């Protein structure tokens, strides 16, 4: 593996050559939150900002001790990989014959600054959309054409619990290059040929000698800032045994069924297929649309909602993330990024609730 040490100026150069070649998605401070956005200038990266996040609470503040001072953004990569509404087919009726036109629209995306939790989310979404008998062509095409710059976190927020959710701090999870900020310089590890090509293009001074233990120190220091822990030992079987617990009713009383947790979750992939027909009955459009297990219509079969009560819907969600997912895909559906905790208006905390159910 090739390794380089970059200065902030060289990092900017790397950023701009990636931006020349790809539709670049990177975090920026917009509408009061750090979020992934398109076409962001290097100077508008949220360097020096950090999020204060806790259950149902979000604010940003400035800090000056490092560049990558923030944590993962508000939205996740699924916003781009699996956009909220995609027109995938048009059906036309011409003289009583139907024609079917399939659309495969995609962008060549590069993501600058993807944290390990979100990289794990991609690994999970790949299992859902690609590694099965019927791969999703739309997702697969975007995925094959993207470039990823991974970044190691320096400090966790109060909602992070990635370490509990099987995040491997040695694993590249498909990133092309990986950046670790060390004393305001940047260790760049090159993991793919695509990554190598970019690094070859910038004027790098001869490789400086470096102490790799420094990187380990940064990661170990980060781990000490993670306050949340979830005991996942034998979690699936324990949760299956709690399926009839009266505690779900308690959660149902608090949950608004607002869908926010599922929509900000980087791995929640459920979608609906909608059709829109023209009034002359000649054109019918088909769309993928983001859906949520908290929607009333989600489990409605023949006008009968199988999960009528909010407690049923919350149980479905938590059980899917923490238990069913393991049977389906061989991994947790949760990556411990804490987005669902921050963005739950009524402060339901999946780590606390899972731990509580486990200890009941």
């Amino acid at each position, binding site marked *: 593996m090739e390794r380089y040490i970059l200065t902030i100026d060289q990092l900017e150069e790397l950023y701009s050559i990636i931006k020349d070649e790809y539709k670049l998605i990177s975090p920026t401070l917009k509408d009061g939150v750090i979020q992934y956005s398109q076409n962001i200038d290097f100077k508008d990266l949220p360097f020096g900002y950090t999020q204060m996040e806790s259950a149902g609470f979000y604010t940003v503040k400035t800090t000056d001790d490092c560049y990558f001072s923030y944590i993962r953004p508000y939205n996740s990569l699924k916003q781009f990989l699996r956009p909220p509404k995609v027109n995938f087919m048009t059906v036309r009726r011409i003289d009583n014959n139907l024609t079917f036109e399939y659309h495969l629209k995609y962008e060549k995306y590069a993501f600058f600054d993807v944290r390990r939790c979100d990289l794990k989310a991609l690994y999970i979404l790949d299992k859902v959309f690609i590694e099965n008998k019927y791969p999703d062509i739309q997702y697969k095409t975007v995925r094959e054409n993207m470039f990823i710059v991974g970044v190691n976190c320096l400090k966790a927020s109060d909602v992070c619990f990635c370490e509990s959710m099987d995040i491997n701090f040695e694993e590249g999870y498909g990133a092309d290059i990986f950046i670790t900020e060390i004393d305001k310089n940047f260790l760049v590890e090159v993991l793919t040929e695509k990554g190598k090509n970019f690094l070859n293009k910038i004027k790098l001074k001869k490789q400086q000698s470096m102490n790799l233990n420094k990187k380990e120190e940064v990661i170990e220091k980060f781990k000490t800032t993670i306050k949340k822990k979830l005991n996942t030992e034998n979690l699936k079987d324990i949760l299956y045994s709690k399926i009839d617990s009266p505690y779900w009713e308690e959660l149902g009383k608090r949950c608004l069924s607002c869908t926010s947790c599922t929509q900000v979750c980087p791995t929640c992939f459920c979608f609906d297929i909608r059709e829109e027909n023209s009034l002359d*009955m000649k054109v019918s459009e088909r769309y993928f649309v983001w859906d949520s297990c908290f929607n009333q219509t989600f489990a409605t079969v023949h006008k009968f909602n199988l999960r009528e009560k909010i407690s049923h819907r919350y149980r479905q969600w938590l059980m899917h993330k923490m238990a069913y997912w393991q049977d389906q895909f061989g991994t947790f559906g949760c990556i411990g990024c804490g987005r669902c905790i921050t963005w739950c208006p009524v402060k339901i905390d999946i780590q606390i609730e899972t731990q509580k159910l486990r200890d009941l």
Partner: protein
Amino acid sequence: MKIGVFKFSSCDGCQLAFFDIAPEIINSEYIEISYFLEATSFNIYDRFDVAFVEGSISTREEEERIKDIRDRSKIVVAIGACAVSGGIQSARNFGNFEEIYSFTYRENYFKDINPLSKPISDFVSVDYTVRGCPVNAEEIIEIITSLLLNKTPHINESPVCIECKRKSIPCLLVMGSPCLGPITVDGCGALCPSLNRGCYGCFGPIKGANFESLRDLFKERGFNFEELIKTGFNAYNPYFRGVIWR
């Protein structure tokens, strides 16, 4: 398909959705607008395959007229906050009727008025509802095309929150503003939250939504839940009655 478009106590704004799609309606060989006072001078008040009804029931004359329209129509669709919930004029339902009446009208100016402004579902059975103030033309198209195809229309029942997330709009409740998004039907494209203003519920409440939990959150933050609902046009919606107003 013979369509009638009717107006009761309302501002006429929802009927404008039909004007948004006028070329498509006129050019469709499947649709015949047989009664639509706002659009045409040629009206036949006979039988209807679908009656789209705007407006709330505010007078005794309107009570009789909505029943007659129901008798003449295979399908009745309530369009907009007035027909679905009672509209902004249902604000009087929460005050002293005599006081409000005398403040608004001269004595005996308009004698026939009911003390309560009610949704049409209080008087007749309603097959489908299209929410909003005003409604979206897309949802009118969905109802008409689905009925032509003999399938169940897709009626929005998900909360505004899902639209905020689709648009990457940070949650206003979490950011500290009052917002009725979690209990309000989507379809507006999260218009107010996209302008950094909390939802005040003009598409009306979701059936079976957790009003109590949102009320508790409002209370904790020092926001007035009941007043915000009254600010919208759906305070007298049947889903609120017996739950928020006892």
